[in-house]
């Protein structure tokens, strides 16, 4: 009886580190198996489950829009076979970035041929595009017209540095949208 109790306790402790509490940052890209359609469906399911880990920090409307965007991006009917499968590591960086930056404007979502998620925020002709790599790393490029002159900047940084490296370009109009709450 006592050993059974110990087994139960050990099992409960192990479950503490089971799937529901797995670290979003430590995801790995799952190798491609099966037809392209099957792979895309599985990836989509995985990306939605990844979102569930942080969904309490996302606006519910935006979560629904995000899922619609993912469904379009991973639609087998539209899939470019030269593209690499979407990367879970990149998506993890994307989610962590969205929650960290707390933009009040929804980004446009895309996918690069190498499977990296792309996010774009606009204000008129001004734009910032962020390519989400693995391990919280992003490539960013920003272009703005200030006093009639076009300025641009680009770089590769960790998520937490995005506000600092973009600050010289006054990026707030790109990320904010009145009182709407994104996350």
């Amino acid at each position, binding site marked *: 009886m006592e050993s059974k109790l110990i087994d139960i306790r050990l099992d409960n402790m192990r479950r503490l580190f089971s799937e529901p509490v797995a670290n979003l940052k430590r995801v790995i890209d799952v190798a491609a198996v099966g037809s392209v359609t099957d792979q895309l469906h599985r990836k989509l399911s995985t990306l939605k489950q990844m979102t569930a880990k942080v969904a309490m920090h996302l606006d519910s409307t935006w979560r629904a*829009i995000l899922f619609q965007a993912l469904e*379009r*991006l991973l*639609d087998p*009917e*539209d899939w*470019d*076979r*030269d*593209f690499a499968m979407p990367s879970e590591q990149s998506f993890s960086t994307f989610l962590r970035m969205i929650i960290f930056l707390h933009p009040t404007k*929804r980004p*446009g979502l*895309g*996918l*690069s*041929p*190498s499977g990296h998620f*792309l996010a*774009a925020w*606009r204000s008129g*002709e001004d*734009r910032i*595009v962020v*390519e989400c790599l693995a391990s919280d790393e992003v*490539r*960013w*490029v*920003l*272009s703005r017209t200030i006093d009639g002159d*076009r300025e*641009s*900047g*680009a770089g590769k940084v960790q998520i937490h540095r995005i506000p600092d490296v973009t600050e010289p370009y006054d990026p707030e109009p790109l990320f904010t949208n009145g009182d709407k709450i994104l996350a």
Partner: protein
Amino acid sequence: MATKYLPDADHVVRHISSQLLERDGDDQVIGCFPQAFELRPGEKYLSASWLEFFDGTRQERLKQTAAACGKVREVRPRHGFAMGNVGVIKEACATFNQKLRIIHEPNENPAYTAVRSYKSDELELLELLASEAWSDVVEAKAYL
């Protein structure tokens, strides 16, 4: 055979996969991501088509370009085409010390064009192309 460089006044059209199109909240195409102009591993030049190879109005030319592109790759309604003026594109790349050669190189696509001497290492150049020099983006469905 002499190398056929496209005139600066003419236009090149690049096929854009749906994943690289930027859309607004109403799902309307408003541009493309800079990564649409990134060379993929092993690629030595950017692929495009010569718009003025075909005759007619812009609409007619685009339809023919879409059909021609469709001979070498799959073109779906939600894909896009980005158009840019040859001279403007060359000028944009020149600001990054790149002297482009935009050459007509027909294959199964009679309007096929290679954008050579092009490097896509600089994200700012890709963004310049996507947002200004090569930024007239339309959805393919209107031309299929």
